[in-house]
């Protein structure tokens, strides 16, 4: 059992144990680590925003290179602080409006391409899609199941009619596909998370305590 001598290994090991202590119950060690986490996270964010965004993209071009165009970004940015001044607090809606407007606009074509057009392309029954399974003529069966599954799941999200008659059957089949999908995803993610747990324990047992070489 040869302990590590690196102070940083000790710090990260003790912080890890403090977080693991939450499994027992909420306790001072956990609260301590939790507040260190929030403090360090925001400290890192301030550093990142200052060195990687504010200095290179605003202060340098504006004050050092004198590009007056950047005054606009500065003024709109400062408007965020009007929120604390009651009389003109509505001005905060200008930077918020710009941010929401741009990202909402940009999300429309990207969303249609990725979530509608590409998904339709993958579901249509064609010879090309049959072959894409690389499973010989079983590919036809898989494509059919996929096709029906998508249509039934779509019917589950149909809100204009009560789930009765045909719609009752198709939406039941739809929820079956949804639940199988969730179960599979749950199972797969369990393995991913346990791998991370094993990784953390290999760090504590290896580099820190030296139990495993």
């Amino acid at each position, binding site marked *: 059992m040869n302990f590590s001598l690196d102070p940083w290994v000790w710090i990260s090991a003790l912080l890890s144990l403090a977080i693991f202590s939450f499994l027992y119950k909420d306790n001072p060690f956990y609260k301590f680590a939790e507040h260190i986490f929030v403090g360090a996270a925001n400290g890192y964010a301030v550093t990142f925003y200052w060195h990687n965004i504010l200095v290179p993209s605003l202060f340098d071009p504006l004050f050092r290179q004198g590009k007056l165009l950047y005054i606009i970004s500065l003024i709109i940015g400062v408007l965020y602080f009007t929120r604390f001044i009651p009389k003109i607090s509505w001005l905060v809606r200008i930077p918020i409006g710009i941010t929401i407007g741009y990202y909402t606009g940009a999300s429309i074509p990207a969303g249609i391409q990725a979530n509608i057009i590409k998904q339709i392309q993958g579901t249509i029954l064609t010879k090309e899609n049959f072959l894409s399974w690389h499973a010989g003529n079983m590919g036809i069966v898989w494509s059919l199941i996929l096709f029906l599954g998508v249509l039934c799941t779509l019917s589950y999200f149909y809100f204009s009619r009560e789930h009765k008659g045909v719609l009752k059957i198709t939406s039941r089949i739809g929820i079956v596909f949804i639940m199988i999908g969730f179960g599979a995803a749950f199972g797969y993610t369990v393995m991913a998370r346990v*791998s991370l747990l*094993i990784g953390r324990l290999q760090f504590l047992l290896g580099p820190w305590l030296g139990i495993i070489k």
Partner: protein
Amino acid sequence: MKIVDLMLKIDRRIIYLILAIVVILPLIIPSAQHVRVMAPVQKLYTAVDTIHPDKALMIDFDYDPQTQPELEPMALAILRHAFKKKIKILGLSLYVQPLGLAKAALDQVTGEINALAKTNSDSVIYGRDYVFLGWQPPPIVPILGMGESITNVYKKDFYGNQTDTLPLMKQIKNYNNVELLISISSGDPPLWWVSYAQNRFGLRVGVGCTAVSASDYYPYLQTGQFSGLMVGMKGAAEYEELVEKDLNIHKRRKASEALPSLTYAHLVMIVFIIIGNIGYFIKRRQK
């Protein structure tokens, strides 16, 4: 019926304790679990095994402390395999953070071999048998540039030597002299290697990735763009199995040692789910 209440009221902390024990014990008492090797890993192993003597294997180390548990065992297994078969190796990273881990893996395996090596020929010499090129930002520059000339992109290697003075680099000019590239990463690098290096220069690409990011890569294996795929600890353990069985190299098999923990953890979860359901059904029938 006291048992039923007991079944339903197992305290969360007991579950946590059992899970912790079940994961820790196999790590402390290592017993590498033997694994059946599946096609994706066998394909990668064969691709490395059949590398032409005068061609090189290029390895892109792109894992960080968080993905190290799943990906480092892959790097170690591939290095042991390639060095045992006297295959020339070029190591590189597309980002700065993995450099330290890449150097550690190279040093560990070359150290193991040189400790046993008696003569000059069966030891591994830097510059002759392997070169560590280091890091060149942005990633697209090395990926495209090495198609024409590796020494133009990496004028100096990780240690600062002039690359064109290294004997190995006189033999390995560009991708034409590289039979296979293996990208060990959980992000986009494997997809870049295919869309740039493979599409333009026909470079064969093998991949080692984490379990979480596997679903994005399977299609590339099916279309043949990947010449092999190792996924998560299980993939690493399969490669370790081949390295031990085919080349009878007996070294610590970190991924295989972690598999029992993985298996028991899953079984514990399944057992508790079953207990919970049995208790639930008995309770319901009582009502």
